[in-house]
């Protein structure tokens, strides 16, 4: 690689803008500028010097901040498009056909297009994931590209800089001290130390610096972002993440999906509501009651070591807990969340075996709807056999009763009743509000007496080993942004020539206002000549004059 030789004798890598030793401008472009470009201290960054191989080209693409900003904006736009209509996972239908129908029914042609473009599930689309990944790659490459040269030049700063460097800083001062010219540098040193600057002195030159670490802020926060993105990607690796859910009826004990060897029992589900009178927004939206508490009193059990998998007979209690919203039950990295509930699910139905004419009962039977028995013995040798059970009766298909689900939402039964009068048995089909007697008129009927209900709780089971990674990523990010935003890197170079003339130059990466306040104090304490900001228009009046000229140049009056 070619080297750039500075007049001071220092060899700089190709692409360097300001000599790394004395600060003289090296490129023709740089020499023309009134104020030096101090980004990355004028060092050569890799992407500006390598441009041959494909790797260079890819590197240069991703290290470009222009590309980085474009990627941020594209991600932003795609993310916002996904909020126009609700995403699929908030739509409670199951199949693709149903989803498609939902979007076109509810949102018309727009919904149809939205669905067919895949925008209804945009965040899980491969395109979105590639975009996020590209953003991640861009952050990594841009940080390496700039971070390393920046670190090198910040570490190897010289105290003495060439006059052309000093002159081309944004804030400069030049001239004789107003008084005490002999002590100027001592006064400067003392004041700057007071202002918490790190001061280095070589002969008649001083470099004072403060808050250099803040320059590393962006790099630290980018590391945090990368750790966070990596953490999110870990979700895809099996074993890091479990997301399951279960319905649990009161009194029921079931194996926990996704958590081998553990069982959970629902002792009780509680729903409490606020007893306020509806008002305001609540009224406008027609909401009558506001929930106050959802709670499952649960007991967590563990199988004994030698138990058969899935067997619920031999359990040890682990703990009892009241699972509420915002208060999940936690055990060994697993957490159980109160997510849903169903009230008054049918638990059992009670029937009387009744003589149709005399209304005389031969006894009562209680059918447990989740675990019905085959046969029920009644008084005087009568009995009822349960031939078939349809927990969620959904009508007949080709003359055969159908059940929609396994939940007892709409139970139906085929009974065979054995009585003294009919020892061979009578068959009856019984559903809610409906009785069929397939073999002609029966003498007895199953008369509905009562139901028992119970509540059901819907719990989510979550296990997420990526959380610590995400958390650490977040903390690193925060440390980085705070470093970079709440502190800044201020530098002051001062040189006094033999005749007492002082040359001052100051630079900060942000917050010039505070930099100038420091300079005001310094100027005052060391009796320095007044500094000038080369970027600021000299006075307000001048600015107003410029404004007038503009008025005359631009367009027609309003």
């Amino acid at each position, binding site marked *: 690689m070619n080297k750039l030789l500075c007049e001071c004798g220092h060899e700089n890598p190709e692409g360097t803008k300001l000599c790394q030793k004395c600060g003289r401008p090296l490129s023709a472009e740089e020499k023309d500028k009134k104020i030096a470009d101090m*980004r990355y201290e004028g060092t050569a960054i890799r992407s500006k010097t390598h441009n041959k191989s494909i790797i260079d080209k890819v590197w240069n693409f991703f290290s470009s901040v222009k590309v980085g900003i474009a990627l941020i*904006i594209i991600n932003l736009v795609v993310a916002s498009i996904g*909020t126009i209509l609700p995403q699929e996972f908030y739509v409670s239908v199951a199949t693709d056909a149903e989803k498609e129908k939902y979007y076109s029914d509810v949102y018309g042609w727009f919904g149809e297009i939205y669905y067919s473009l895949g925008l209804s599930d945009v965040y899980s689309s491969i395109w979105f994931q590639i975009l996020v990944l590209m953003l991640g790659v861009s952050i990594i490459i841009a940080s390496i590209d700039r971070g390393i040269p920046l670190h090198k030049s910040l570490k190897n700063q010289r105290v003495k800089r060439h006059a052309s460097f000093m002159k081309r800083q944004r804030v400069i001062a030049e001239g004789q001290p107003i008084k005490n010219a002999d002590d100027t540098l001592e006064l400067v040193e003392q004041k700057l130390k007071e202002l918490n600057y790190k001061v280095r002195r070589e002969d008649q030159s001083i470099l004072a610096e403060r808050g250099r670490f803040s320059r590393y802020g962006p790099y630290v926060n980018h590391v945090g972002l990368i750790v966070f993105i990596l953490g999110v990607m870990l979700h895809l690796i099996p074993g890091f993440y479990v997301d399951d859910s279960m319905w649990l009826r009161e009194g029921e004990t079931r194996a926990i999906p996704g958590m081998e060897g553990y069982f959970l029992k629902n002792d009780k589900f509680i729903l409490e509501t606020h007893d306020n009178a509806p008002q305001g927004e609540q009224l406008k939206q*027609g909401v009558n009651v506001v929930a106050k508490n959802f709670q499952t009193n649960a007991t967590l059990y563990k199988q004994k070591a030698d138990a058969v998998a899935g067997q619920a007979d031999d359990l040890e209690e682990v703990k009892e807990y009241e699972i509420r919203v915002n208060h999940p039950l936690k055990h060994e990295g697993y957490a159980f*969340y109160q*997510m849903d509930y169903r009230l008054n699910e049918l638990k059992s139905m009670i029937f009387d075996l009744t003589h149709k004419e005399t209304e005389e009962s031969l006894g009562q039977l209680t059918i447990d709807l989740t675990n019905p028995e085959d046969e029920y013995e009644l008084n005087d040798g009568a009995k009822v056999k349960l031939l078939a059970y349809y927990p969620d009766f959904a009508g007949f298909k080709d003359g055969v009763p159908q059940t929609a689900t396994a939940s007892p939402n709409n139970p139906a039964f085929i009974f065979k009743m054995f009585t003294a009068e009919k020892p061979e048995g009578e068959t009856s089909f019984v559903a809610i509000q409906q009785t069929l007697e397939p073999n002609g008129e029966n003498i007895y009927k199953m008369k509905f007496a009562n139901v028992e209900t119970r509540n059901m709780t819907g719990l989510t089971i979550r296990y997420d080993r990526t959380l610590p990674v995400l958390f650490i990523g*977040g903390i690193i990010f*925060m440390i980085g942004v705070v470093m970079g935003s709440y502190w800044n890197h201020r530098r002051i170079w001062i040189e006094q020539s033999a005749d007492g003339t002082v040359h001052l130059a100051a630079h900060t990466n942000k917050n010039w206002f505070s930099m100038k306040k420091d300079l005001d104090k310094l100027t005052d304490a060391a009796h320095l000549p007044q500094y000038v900001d080369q970027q600021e*228009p000299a006075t307000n009046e001048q600015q107003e004059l410029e404004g007038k000229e503009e008025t005359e140049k631009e367009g027609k009056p*309003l």
Partner: protein
Amino acid sequence: MSLIDISGNLLYIAFFCYLIGTFLFGGAIKEKNDTAASRADKFGKVAIIVTIIGFIAHLAYFITRWIYTGHAPVSNMFEFTTAFGMFIVLSFIVLYYMYKVAALGVVALPIALLIIAYAAMFPTEVSPLVPSLQSHWLTIHVITAALGQSILAISSVAGLVYLLKNVNTKVRSFESIMFEMVMYCGVLVLGFVVATSTFSIMNYESKFEYVDTLDNVKQTTYMMPAIFGMNEYTELSEDKMTPVMEMPALIDARKLTTVVWSILFGSVLYLLIRLVLRRSVSSMLQPLVKRVNSQLMDEIAYRSVLIGFPVFTLGALIFAMIWAQVAWSRFWGWDPKEVWALITFLYYAAFLHLRLSKGWEGKKSAWLTLVGLLIILFNLVVVNLVIAGLHSYA
């Protein structure tokens, strides 16, 4: 007088202090050259004192309401928006002591006034909390996020001042028209306030029954004369305005009616201002900032973003994720509110990078801060009121 009434009155006091403060700051600007080292003059001093008294009253409103309701008053539209206004004033006061620029007051205080007035248009009753909101994270997350948003909003206050000074409002150009549009939008918010107050003083209320997207029959109450009717509506109240037009189920005609009334009132107001003053609102305001140091404004805008960005990230993303993990079992669920917090974050990240690498300073940067304010307000208004978030229990 009960605590909640005291709380309400304190808010009134704050409102009037800010109103007076605005005019005092207006006087402060005219007095002196604003670029000189001694920026604070006697008007400025009185103005900031009145503003601080207003802020203390505002804070007292917040605390008394907190005591009364038993939870941080940030749980509905009225409470959150009022708190947002309070943090804007707080950010302004801090900024004033950092930079001593009175011109910021003439923009920041009216914005805070508009926000508080807007908030007061929502039901102010104490609403009971649903279970997911019963958490300390409500307090921690919402207050940090609102603070972050208000610091970011202050950057657009500086941006506005910058543009007011640097956009040439005397000629008709794309820029000056856009800027006048910004002023017009401000008047529209006022229009919303005037429209809502007018109809509420008239006690206007009319009930409708309608059919929603999933074919359920529902009821709704209009607080303004119905311009648009809900899908397949039937009127339940008598002698009220019959809707001019029926809307499909997808569109909430009640909210649309509110929007249209606000635009009507706002536009009439705007026209009146133009007729009386015979010039654009921006050129009327321009003399106020004549003495402002543009470069300092630019720096204040940038600095506010720098200060607000970490606070916003902490409150609106990190704390939000922690709470979501505790309450909803997942730290992130692509809910519209979450996505718009992410969009705000990405937007300001883009802003910082543009400024850093492409040198987007001055006017460009000032316009960007206004877009940022637009995103924040979108998140506050549209995402809360229009886009349906579906994870609620109620």
